[in-house]
């Protein structure tokens, strides 16, 4: 067993930001294990991605380019990647813990009968083993987990690792045929949510809760998010009230986010909401109740009416950012 592999996630031919971060984490792993770093590129017409991976510091690129791999389907990607791994026996495989990455990691682990640690937020190497720090019990506890035997599969959370930087490197990728039989799924339609900033990738999130009072109350929240080029989020109370769609929900039964800045407006900070945002770098709370639990988590707080505070903040940011 040798080599550290990083799966390069792409959507419509573009490398996802999380994969740059995985290459960053991959460097740490490869250095710690004193082994080469291999980027694994799967898709159709993805030659450019292989070059991008070299540029981001991959020592080798292993790829499969096939029309059946055009769109991600785990039952197509899984067997191809598992097949590559069976033939070449990498010691470690790293996946970004996106919807695709989590599915693919689970599939490959099942096919290889390998150990898998999911959704890590920290990574170190000790005696030839990857040690992954991950939140458990909805972020109330933290565990150090490692694979005890065989190839070590890990998936790591987005925005938790520094992205690999451009090295100017290049090379020849090694392409292998993708032998896929029948695939039992077909993607018949795709409705893009492009145009809205994705919560998972956002570096700044402004969220509204029950305190916004109704669907219209999200307008000042959106305005602040816009001036910061950030994404908008919501608490479950606001989603359950039907003021905003579920896609926006942050928390235990919504999205887990980890932006540089999280501004919670009219959100009390229930433990289930915290589960989705407590790893944010800086948390700001705007709430009219000085005793709201969100202030226990926040670095900065303003006690006041969000309908007064938000427009003032939007105006101030507008001034400073020149927009």
């Amino acid at each position, binding site marked *: 067993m040798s080599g550290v592999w990083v799966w390069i996630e792409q*959507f419509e031919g573009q490398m*996802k930001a999380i994969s740059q971060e995985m290459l960053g984490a991959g460097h740490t792993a490869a250095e710690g294990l004193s082994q080469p770093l291999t980027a694994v590129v799967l898709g159709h017409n993805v030659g450019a991605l292989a070059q991008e991976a070299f540029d981001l510091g991959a020592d080798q690129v292993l790829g499969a380019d096939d029309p059946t791999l055009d769109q991600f389907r*785990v039952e197509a990607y899984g067997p191809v990647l598992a097949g590559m791994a069976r033939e070449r026996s990498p010691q470690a495989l790293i996946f970004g813990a996106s*919807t*695709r990455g*989590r599915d693919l990691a*689970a*599939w490959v*682990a*099942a096919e290889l009968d390998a*150990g*898998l640690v*999911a*959704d890590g937020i920290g990574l170190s190497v000790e005696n030839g083993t990857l040690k992954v720090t991950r*939140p*458990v*019990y*909805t972020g*109330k*506890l*933290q565990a*150090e*987990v*490692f*694979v*005890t035997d065989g190839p070590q599969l890990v998936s790591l959370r987005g925005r938790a690792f520094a992205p690999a930087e451009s090295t100017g490197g290049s090379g020849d990728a090694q392409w292998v045929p993708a032998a896929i039989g029948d695939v*039992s*799924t077909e*993607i*018949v*339609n*795709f*409705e*893009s*949510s*492009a145009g809205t900033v*994705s919560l*998972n*990738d956002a*570096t700044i999130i402004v969220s509204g809760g029950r305190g916004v009072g109704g669907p219209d109350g999200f307008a000042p929240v959106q305005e602040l998010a816009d001036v910061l080029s950030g994404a908008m989020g919501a608490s479950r109370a606001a989603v359950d009230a039907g003021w905003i*769609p*579920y896609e926006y*929900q942050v928390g*235990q*039964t919504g999205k887990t986010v980890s932006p540089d800045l999280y501004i919670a407006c009219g959100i009390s900070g229930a433990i289930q909401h915290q589960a989705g945002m*407590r790893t944010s*770098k800086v948390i700001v709370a705007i709430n009219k109740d000085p005793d709201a639990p969100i*202030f226990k*988590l*926040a*670095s*900065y*707080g*303003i006690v006041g009416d969000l309908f007064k*505070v938000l427009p*003032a903040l939007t*105006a*101030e*940011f507008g001034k*400073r950012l020149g927009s």
Partner: protein
Amino acid sequence: MRVIVCIKQTPSTTAVFSVENGIVSWDDPGDKPTVLNPWDEYAVEEAIRVQEAHGGDTVALTMGPESSQDALKTCLAMGCTEAILVSDDVFAASDTLGTARVLAAAIKKSGDAQLALFGKQAIDGDTGQTTIQTAQKLGWTPLTFVAEIKELDPEAGTITVVRLVEEGRETVKAALPAVISVVKEINEPRYPSFMGIRKANRAQIPVWTAADLELDGPPGSSKADWSEISALPARDTKVEIIEADSVEEQAKILVDRLFEEKVI
């Protein structure tokens, strides 16, 4: 049509945890220390809706300790027609792959199901791996993060679902049998009815052990070491409440701070 719904009993969402020598225990400020995994409620609801539309049975299945009977009873009270507990001391240390093996074997043994529904993740381990791994072990079509079942045709053996992915919503047509994990958007879980609760309390839930299953690997296997578990380091922040004579002034100070923090 026979539908399986895989559920897990987990600590309640308000549970307060403590760790001593790597052993996790918890207390609940309310009176329900364990619950049906909240994500699984949506799977149970969807299974019942499929049964209401297509007839047949809805079977709640869990692998866990004897006490998991409680969560199964919740499923029966909601409207599942059967429940199966797979319980054996040898399973105690299973990782998700070990769990998936057991679930796959139990699903096979339980009859000719066409659909197995799962929650998005269990709120204890929070891995969200079991669904895919069970699908892989069964050789069934995996469909994760499903927000809507658009069409289900047991005769033709097809299903069409909408999946939520980072970039949008993907409509997928697939062949049955399928393993599906659902997200919250899919439905609004019902509360157990009074009659349902009475029926559930009287139900005798069969218990299967390792000896009852044809496992394709050693039972209770785990390739992950979880022994180092600890309380979360507290967020080392103390909140600075920004006060000033006007909101404009407050906004100015806050914006200054955020520029200093280099998060803008």
